Every structure is written in structure tokens, then in C-alpha cells.
């Protein structure tokens, strides 16, 4: 087993004292950055990039990779505790994490998130170790038609996410997609939907602006109204025993964890997809295969486990095309790539041959980072819960401030802060009338991936939609197969409803 030997060498590198220190430091920094609304791994890695010159390149990249991992763990924390996605990858964690926290089960949700992240990270690192080169080849061959088919599948997994009012669900999806079209139309190279000619719309509507608006500001307004401002948010306590019990209870969620990990990993390795669609799809899929899908969104542990396993798995997955192809699967890996280039490491198929120690040191560090991130995360849970015990009239304004600062940080533009306020207030007013908000958030993530993929495919096919079914990669109709699954998923709820209706009749 050559791979095993290489991996052992890698561990020797990962456990060098300096590298251990940078792993722990990276995880801790990542946890804080990830837990801050608006800031995710991409900001953390970008900001820390210049420090890569202080240590040898291998340690530097290990530090950034550990930070990346830590931020993935950290994103779940603000999703669960504050109901604001700490990063775009953690948005699906809000759907069930927040209700759990409201029920006083924040500790359980946090433990579940950390554990699921750990499982997702581990499974994906194993997959990475075993199948890196062939998977890289698959990822390389994926073109626009396949990506479009995949996005359709992502929408299909979310068909059940909306409320009971179908018209309002469709409205929510459509408005999300229209908002995602704001900015530049890359196919025609022209600015599009520049409202009031404000230059702030040139960069489009950042997904986080919508998510923080709806889940941050909108959610607090909602809580203030339903409780008349007299609540503490959650009565959770934490003790060693409770953590152990929570860990034991997680055995019921193993299936979801594994499903989320595999799904997240495979979506993550596809260039241009990345961890956010991966985690959203995992959530939708978990709900779809669940026996009691109606418990989702009301505090189902599986609803936390699936996206958290998936986003960590996807973040490892996204490293694969970066290392083997030099193609970043996510913005964060794009920055990591920049870091490698600064150090004269040329990513690409030859990296695995020419810089074995670097590649396997990095992979081994990912294992180590996983363990440390889990431990650091668990250790901080009491602190997080203490924050939740603050009176709401202190917590609410602090969350508002975090929203404002978090809305500003990614683009450093006050335009986005105003937009976030508008989304928050309008989202809240609409939510009172049963307009579901999650489909809009999903749509604004997937829209910018789906639309260009569709139009690129159509240009290639001279405008024929048949390309999505007839195109083959080495004789395999990958796109058609994904489309088939997507159509089946779309039909599934219909079949279910029909069956439910026919049963009492017979």
C-alpha cells in the first residue's frame, strides 16, 4: 500500500511541533472568524494569507487549511445560537439549529453540529486519500450541461422546503432567482438590473446580504414580536453528562451523517459548485428520505447533522480540484491556490508527483485539524451557551450590531447594509403572511450557478435543450442521468400525495 506509507509520512509532517501549533492556532482562529456573522472561511483565509511568509510553505498552507476547517465548524455556532448563518455554508444549519436552540436544546445542536462536521470531514478525507486522482478526472470532465443538471437536482431536493401555500413558495423561489440575476450578465457582458443606477448593484446581491437580512434582522423582529421582548432565548444548561448523552443520542443520526458526507463530498469536488450547494442539497435530501419530513424546520437533529456533515465534506472535496487541477471548487480554495502560487507550488496533476510531502502533509493535517476543531469546539460550548442566557434586550441589539457589521464586512460597502435592512424588514413582513423564506435563500445561491451553465450549454448546442439529455462523457450520459434523478425527485412528492390520497379511499 503505497498510499498508506505516503499517508504515514504525511502524519510525521503534520505532527512536527510547528505544524501542530499552526493547526491548533488555525482551528481556533477559524472558529472565531466562522462564528462571526458575515465572515466565513473565505475572509479568514484571505486575511491571513500574508502571514504565509512567516513559516515554511507547508506549515503556512496547513495553517490556512486548518483555519478553513475551523471556520466550517464555527459557521454552525452562530447559525444555531443566533439564528444567523455564520457563513454561507452554514445557512441550512439555521433551519433546524435555531428551533432547537429556542427549545433549550442548543447544547444538543452544537454537539451534533460539531460531531457531524467531524464525521463529514473524516469521511471526505478518507475518500480524498483513496480516490483523489480518478475523482479529479471526473471533476475535470464535468461541463456546463452537467452542472446545470446538478443544479436542477438541487432544486428538486428542495421542492419540499417551502410552506403549504404553493403560490407563495413559487413566489419566493422566483424572487430569489431574480435577485441572483442582479449585477453583470457574463454571457452578454452587460450590466443587468442596476436598480436606480446605484453602482452598489454592479457587484450583484451578495447571498449573505439576503441571508443575514432574513435570518438576522427578520428573525429578531419576529422573536421580539412573538415574545413581546420579554424572553431569554434559551434555557439550555451544559454539563459533561449532557454532552455525553447528546453524543450517545447521535447514534440515531449516523445514517444522515454518512449520507450528508458523501453527498457533500461529491458536490464539493465539482468545480464551481462548492460547499454551500452541497450543504443545502444534503438538507433537502435528508428531509426527502426522512420518515417524518414534517418535523424538519421545527428542530430535528437530522436537519443539523446533514448540512454540517456535508459542508465539511464539501470543503475537503473542494480541495481536490484545487490541488489536482489548479481549479478552485470554492472561493476559499481560490485563495488557498493563490497562497500556493506565492510559494512557488504549482497546483496541477503533477503536484501529487513532484511535491509528495506537501500533498500528504496537508492531507494528514486535515485529519489532525478535524480532531482539534472538534475538541476546541466542544470546549467552547459552555461559553456559547452563556451568551445565550443574556437577557434578550441585551442580546437583540448586539445581534443587530453584528448583522450590520457582518453585512458590511464581505464587500465593505454600506450599500449592502441598507439592502440587508430592507430584506430583513420586508422579509419579516412577508413571513407574517406565510411567505416561506428558505426557497429565496436557496435560489440566490443556485441562481448564479444555474443560469450561466444553462446558457453556456445552449450556446454550445446551438440553442437545443436536447444537450442536457444527449451529451455524453466517454459514452456515459452523465447529464441525462442527473436530469433523470432530478425529474424523479420532482415527481416524488406528487407520487407520495397520490398514494396518501388513494390509501383512505381503498
Amino acid at each position, binding site marked *: 500500500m503505497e498510499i498508506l506509507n505516503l499517508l504515514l509520512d504525511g502524519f510525521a509532517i503534520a505532527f512536527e511541533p510547528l505544524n501542530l501549533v499552526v493547526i491548533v*492556532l488555525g482551528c*481556533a*482562529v477559524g472558529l*472565531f*472568524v466562522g462564528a462571526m456573522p458575515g465572515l466565513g472561511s*473565505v475572509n479568514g483565509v*484571505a486575511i*491571513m*494569507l*500574508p*502571514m*504565509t*511568509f*512567516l513559516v515554511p510553505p507547508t506549515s503556512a498552507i496547513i495553517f490556512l487549511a486548518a483555519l478553513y476547517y475551523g471556520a466550517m465548524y464555527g459557521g454552525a455556532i452562530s447559525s444555531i445560537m443566533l439564528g444567523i448563518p455564520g457563513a454561507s455554508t452554514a445557512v441550512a444549519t439555521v433551519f433546524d439549529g435555531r428551533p432547537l436552540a429556542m427549545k433549550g436544546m442548543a447544547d444538543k445542536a452544537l454537539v451534533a453540529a460539531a460531531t457531524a462536521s467531524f464525521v463529514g470531514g473524516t469521511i471526505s478525507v478518507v475518500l480524498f486519500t483513496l480516490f483523489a486522482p480518478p475523482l479529479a478526472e471526473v471533476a*475535470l*470532465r*464535468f*461541463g*456546463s450541461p452537467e452542472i446545470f443538471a446538478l443544479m436542477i437536482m438541487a432544486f428538486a431536493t428542495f421542492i419540499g422546503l417551502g410552506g403549504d401555500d404553493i403560490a407563495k413558495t413559487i413566489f419566493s423561489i422566483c424572487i430569489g432567482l431574480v435577485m441572483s440575476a442582479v*449585477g*453583470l450578465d*457574463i*454571457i*452578454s*457582458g*452587460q*450590466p443587468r438590473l*442596476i436598480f436606480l443606477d446605484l*453602482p*452598489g*448593484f*454592479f*457587484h450583484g446581491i451578495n447571498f449573505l446580504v439576503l441571508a443575514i437580512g432574513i435570518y438576522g434582522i427578520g428573525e429578531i423582529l419576529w422573536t421580539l414580536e412573538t415574545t413581546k421582548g420579554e424572553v431569554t432565548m434559551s434555557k439550555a444548561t451544559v454539563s459533561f453528562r449532557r454532552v455525553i448523552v447528546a453524543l450517545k443520542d447521535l447514534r440515531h443520526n449516523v445514517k444522515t451523517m454518512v449520507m450528508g458526507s458523501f453527498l457533500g463530498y461529491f458536490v464539493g469536488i465539482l*468545480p*464551481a459548485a462548492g460547499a454551500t450547494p452541497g450543504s443545502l442539497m444534503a438538507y433537502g435530501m435528508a428531509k426527502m428520505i426522512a420518515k417524518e419530513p414534517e418535523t424538519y424546520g421545527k428542530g430535528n437533529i437530522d436537519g443539523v447533522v446533514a448540512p454540517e456533515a456535508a459542508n465539511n465534506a464539501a470543503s475537503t472535496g473542494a480541495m481536490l*480540484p484545487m490541488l489536482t*487541477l*489548479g*481549479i*478552485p471548487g470554492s*472561493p476559499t480554495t*481560490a*485563495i488557498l*491556490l*493563490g497562497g500556493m*502560487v*506565492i510559494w*512557488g507550488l*504549482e497546483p*496541477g*496533476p*503533477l503536484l501529487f508527483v513532484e511535491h509528495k510531502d506537501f500533498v500528504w502533509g496537508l492531507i494528514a493535517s486535515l485529519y489532525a485539524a478535524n480532531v482539534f476543531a472538534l475538541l476546541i469546539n466542544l470546549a467552547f460550548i459552555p461559553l456559547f451557551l452563556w451568551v445565550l442566557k443574556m437577557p434578550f434586550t441585551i442580546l437583540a441589539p448586539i445581534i443587530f450590531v453584528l448583522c450590520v457589521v457582518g453585512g458590511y464586512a464581505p*464587500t*465593505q*460597502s454600506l450599500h449592502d447594509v441598507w439592502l440587508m435592512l430592507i430584506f430583513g424588514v420586508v422579509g419579516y413582513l412577508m413571513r407574517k403572511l406565510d411567505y416561506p423564506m428558505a426557497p429565496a435563500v436557496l435560489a440566490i445561491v443556485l441562481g448564479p450557478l444555474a443560469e*450561466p451553465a444553462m446558457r*453556456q450549454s445552449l*450556446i*454550445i448546442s*446551438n440553442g437545443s435543450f436536447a444537450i442536457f439529455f444527449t451529451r455524453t462523457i466517454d459514452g456515459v450520459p452523465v447529464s441525462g442521468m442527473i436530469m433523470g434523478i432530478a425529474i424523479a425527485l420532482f415527481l416524488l412528492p406528487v407520487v407520495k400525495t397520490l398514494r396518501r390520497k388513494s390509501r383512505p379511499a381503498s
Partner: protein
Amino acid sequence: MNILGRTALLGLGAGLMLGLGAAAVSHDAAAQGWEPKKPVEFIIMAGIGGGADKMARLMQTIIAKNKLSSKPFTPINKPGGSGAESLVYLKEKTGDNHVIMVTLNSFYTTPLRQPDLGIDIMTFTPIGRMAEDTFLLWVHADSTIMNVNDFVKAVKAKGSDWVMAGTGKGQEDQLLTSFLNSGYGLDMKYVPYKGGGRVAKELAGKNADSTVNNPSEQLGFWEAGKTRPLAAFTAQRLEVFKDVPTFRELGKDYVYYMQRSVVGAPGMSKEAEAFYRGVFARVYATDEWQAYMAKKSLLGGFLTGAALKRYWTGERAVHETILRDIGEIK
């Protein structure tokens, strides 16, 4: 505070920050003359992770490492509208001594294509041209196309089904494609993708038939034997691609570069301008920058002041002609 201090700070969490706050202030930057009073906004005219972004972050790293400035340079990406957003932002910051920007060729094309923006690039403060990026024509290594003659034959056989992948419409890649289409009487189909890295991948994955990538974008695939350069859009052969002819040698005078320049907000004070020129002249001279240029086949010497403005005038005229030829402007 240095970067290590910054990292430690984060790691220790917010509570301990104050204690470390007073850590040593050390810089041996140009002690005389103007110096930034606050962090310098380093606007990047392109998205996070793209070619311009990587280069800007490399410059930032070099500045921090060599302590060329007493205050940090903070990169901010404003990619909106092919750079329109950052151009407008810089214009709004007229007279500000703490805003500079990394530009590429959208510096010429975006104001030409969107005259409503009211941008006159000649008002911007010329700080330094750091490099000129080069372009080559690439095909997949599995194809039987070995030279430009084969290429022309193959494209003609496929007609408009030949897929040329490139970056957004009206940007560099499309300009080069239109050179080829008109010069060789071809009818290639142009498919725009987001970013040069993605374009390179589409070729390596056989989802496109050819591209006109920068060397930095195709280098990994080329070294792995997945793609093949046919000819360079440069005046002389490139050091890294010695066997690859230039279009000029092949009888077509297609020379086209992508500028990598740093500009300041309009109306910046003379002292500030001098400071930034000094910083970037020193960045240009560092071993790191020179090594990067050699590795990525970047050309071009350091230009600044009036010479840089003359360069802009020439390049803008070139782009105006090309854009008019392909019908992007009237």
C-alpha cells in the same frame, strides 16, 4: 503590529486583545516624506481568487514582508460590472490619498463600453505598471492539431460548431478570438465563462475546443501534458515556451498584452503619489516579484508617471479600434 501578532490576537480571542495591543511598532519604510496615516484601501478590479486578485495579494504580501509601508494595505474586491464598480468608486474618492487600485484591461474597455459612467481614465493617478500578462492560443493535447495551420484547417472543417471558451463578452479573450476569426476567415463560436481558471479547465476537460488563456492559467495543465500551446500573441517568443512561435512570425501582427497596473484615486497629492510610486517600484524590484514574473511568463518593465499615461493613451486607442471592429461600441 505585525502579522504574527495579529494572528496570535485572533487566536487568543477578543478578551486578550487589549493586552497585546501595544506590541512593538516596527517599520523601516521610507522614513522621509509622506506616509499613509491609516490602512490603505487596495481596490481589486476583479473577483476574489482570480488572476488580478492573486497578483494583488502577492503585492500585499511583499509589501508586508519587506515592511514597505508603515500602515497595512487592505485588499478589497470590487469586481462588479467588469470593473465599473471600482472605477466609479475611485472617481468618488477623488482627492483621497489612501485609495489605490489594481487594474487590468477592463480599465480601458469598461469606460469605452459604458460611457454613461463618466469615467476619464486619464484623471487617475498613474502609480506603476507592474507587468504585462501574455496570451497564447491553446488546444487539447489529445487533438492532432500541432500548429496554427492545422488549427485553421480543423476549425474550418467544423465551422461554427468549433467552441472557443473565454472570459466574459467584450473582454480580452473575445477580442483575441475576433482577431483570429477575421484574420483567418473563421467562424468560431465564443462561449463566455466566469474567470480564466474556469476557461482553462473547460479546455482540459474537453468541453471546449480551444482557448486563449494566459500562461498562468494553463500552466498546470500544460505541465501535466493535457493542453498544447500553438502560438503566442507576443512580439517575441516567450522564455517558458521557446518552441512556440508568435503570430508575428506566422505573418499575422497580433500582439496583445494585459496590463497589470496600480493606479491611485484622481487628484491624489504629489507627496502621496511619490510614496506609492516608491513602494511599487520597490515591489517590482524584489526577488519574489521577479521570480513570479519569470514563472508566469509576464513581460514588461516598470512604468510610472507620464510614461504610464502615454502607455494608457496608446492602449486605449488600440482597444477602441478593436471594440469598434467587433461591434461592441459604435
